[in-house]
């Protein structure tokens, strides 16, 4: 490859990679800016080693989904397949949003005012019998902290209720906006 061609390829390559990263950032920032805001209760988490990277592992009360909420379980199916799940959230009197109903795959109709659909993922092998719960994840189960602050917060979380403010895009994609210690805001995420 001749000199100028190589430099031009390098420039195009750099712009491609930067553009790709910028596109992800822009998409995530758009969810934060435009998404419907919901407050979710975070539950105490299992103790885990935080030495490797500083994040706390978050478990929401919507992470455990009662099977009875799921409206469209195909007849005769006893265990879940790996795939998407849509959970419709509604706001309760205490300000937290909780799961009101859920569907495997997409929701059949649009969410009414005061309700939000959040897109989750179900792994295969969960029992689908009526009185059990299964575990869904929403891509918001992790909160990264500055080095050294993970343990203290995780300890506090086990003694009093913490909440997470989440922005949910129209597509159902969720994005953590802020970590709340009761009513005090611990971390708020800037757009970028």
């Amino acid at each position, binding site marked *: *490859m001749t000199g100028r061609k190589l430099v031009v390829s390098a420039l195009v*390559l*750099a712009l491609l990679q*930067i553009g790709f990263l910028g596109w*992800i*950032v822009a998409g995530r920032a758009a969810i934060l800016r435009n998404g419907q805001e919901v407050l979710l209760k975070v539950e105490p988490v299992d103790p885990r080693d935080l030495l490797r990277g500083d994040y706390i592992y978050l478990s929401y009360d919507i992470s455990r989904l009662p099977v009875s909420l799921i409206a469209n379980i195909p007849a005769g199916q006893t265990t879940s397949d790996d795939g998407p799940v849509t959970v419709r959230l509604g706001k309760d009197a205490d300000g937290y949003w909780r799961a009101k109903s859920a569907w495997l795959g997409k929701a059949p109709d649009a969410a009414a005012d005061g309700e939000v659909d959040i897109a989750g993922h179900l792994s295969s092998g969960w029992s689908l019998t009526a009185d059990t719960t299964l575990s869904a994840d929403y*891509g918001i189960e992790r909160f990264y902290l500055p080095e050294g602050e993970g343990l203290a917060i995780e300890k506090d979380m086990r003694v009093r209720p913490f909440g997470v403010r989440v922005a949910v895009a129209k597509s159902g994609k969720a994005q953590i906006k802020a970590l709340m210690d009761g009513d005090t805001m611990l971390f708020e995420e800037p757009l970028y």
Partner: protein
Amino acid sequence: MASYSTRVRQDIARWAENGLIDAATADALARDVEANDRRSLSFGSILAMMAALLFGAAILIFVAANWEAIPRLARVVSLFAVILAGYVGGAVVKTRGHPAIGEALWIVAAAAFGGAIALVGQMYHLTGDESSAVLTWCAGTALAAVMLRSSPLTVAAVGIAVGWLVMTLLGGFRLFGQTDFPHLYVGMAVILFLLSYCTLSRPARHLILLSLILYAALFAADHDMLQVAVALVVVSAVLFAAAVTAPGPVERIVQLGGRLPLHALIGFLTGMAMIQFTVADGEANANFAIASAVALSGIAAAIVLAGRESRGLRWIAYLGFAFELVIVYLVTMQTMLGTAGFFLVAAVFLAVLAFVIVRIEKRWAAPALQGG
């Protein structure tokens, strides 16, 4: 320092300018010179590559530290700047006749791309995405390797792919037990192997073949399947036969510098060892005896058929032979003899091994001296 390759490259540029050769020929010539130039790795270029790897690791760990003193927008922008400066700067430096430094800068840029992916994941608290993040990093590095025709970047892409395979299996991504075996790796290996022709990267092809043997071994271990090990042995034997009977055509296809038999032998020995472990099941039996006989005759055949041409192959064969002696001993005698017995038998084995190696090396050395 104007090395031979630098001078040839200047000549090629001049010939192209004067219309003596067309652009395609100039390109092909320049790449050929470059590919052959790389074979003599200088100490300086090794140091440059090590510095680049350290720099890349520093970027990745810096991102992981999530240091708040620098706003993250500034962190993102500076990583973008490293990507841009690394790729473009590397290209400029390379065209000015310092290929080693140029390649090292590209490695830094590729590391910065991986660091930026991690940083974006951290900024927006993305979960469960390590696997796809590493795959994205691998794809970005492979793209860079093709666009810049860079052998080190190809090797880096293969390295990231192997890292992905190992981390997925070790449960680093918390996937083990939930998903199936990462067969996607075979597809990645095939794509990277094809790309390595475009980037003239023989080291990448060597690494891919070795990683595929690792993949097969992990797959066989994970699924406890004799069939996988047998398939590895058969494929290796076929490749070996092909490489020995038709060295010219095979070398034109794989372009491994005549080292395909070496990989095939490693694959064969790995597969045989897994078969032996499986069929032995802690005690000697007829199947184990057959498997051991096959392994030992395979080693002998490899030395007879291809040992003359390749010293490396001979040493792999000796290692395999030593391993076979140990494994046969462990399975057959383990229960009967104590530690002293083991040392005694090991001493006898080593003596036998030394005798065999000395005999063979002497036999091959004589004609080589005459020929050379």
